[in-house]
């Protein structure tokens, strides 16, 4: 249970924090103009963006780890929970205005995530269980 909770938090926090850090870095960098596209490469020199990319890499790693032992329909809501983290960070770190509608959206997503997180994480498959049982019997014999 603790492992599930930890991976859920890792997915949501890395996803949300990564996005916010990228936004902060891009704000410092200024607008990218089409007549000077090479300007975008200077983004990789900005510490906010570098840390943001590291967070997004962490998100992808924890997402793949979760998928290795949980159903897709169990893990997907966790990625949506990243929006909730983004809303909180936008409000308190980037000082953006978050409308009541957005907070309502945050509540709904949180409810949806809570609903799934309390259920089973992996579909039980009778065929694989049976195979394992057969193998065990075979080994015993």
């Amino acid at each position: 249970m603790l492992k599930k909770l930890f991976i859920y938090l890792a997915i949501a926090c890395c996803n949300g924090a990564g996005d916010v850090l990228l936004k902060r870095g891009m704000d410092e960098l200024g607008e990218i103009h089409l007549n000077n596209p090479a300007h975008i490469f200077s983004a990789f020199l900005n510490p906010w963006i570098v840390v943001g990319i590291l967070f997004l890499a962490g998100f992808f790693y924890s997402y793949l780890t979760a998928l290795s032992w949980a159903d897709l329909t169990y893990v997907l809501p966790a990625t949506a929970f990243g929006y909730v983290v983004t809303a909180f960070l936008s409000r308190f770190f980037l000082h953006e205005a978050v409308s009541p509608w957005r907070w309502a959206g945050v509540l709904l997503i949180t409810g949806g995530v809570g609903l799934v997180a309390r259920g089973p994480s992996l579909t039980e498959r009778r065929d694989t269980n049976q195979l394992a049982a057969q193998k065990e019997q075979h080994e015993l014999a």
Partner: protein
Amino acid sequence: MSSLKLWIAIGMLVMASSAGDVMLSAAMKRIGDLEEIRAKKGLLAVVGHVVREKLFLLGLCCLIFSFFCLLTALSWGDASLVAPASASLTYICSAILAKFLLHENVDRRRWLSAALVCIGVILLVK
């Protein structure tokens, strides 16, 4: 006409990203628990296992394609329409694909959650 073009791009984006998610999920189930592999053989072995799985690479290609569809859709329409429309449709589409292709047990609890997340994502841009 231009709105039809936009919705085709959103449709392709949704299909590509759900297909990518389903492939990643199937690929990871084939590889097994990544944490266990990491504990036994280290992080490099995990990377080795993952990049050698063809289904993972195919899924990754789908996700990259969906990213370019997203950029295209964003250049044709407002971000306030494209982002929530594609994200919320992807949740529903992935749940449907997971049920029929991965044979996951998508019970009432998970459908309800997908619907709540969907409406929540739409509200986020209000």
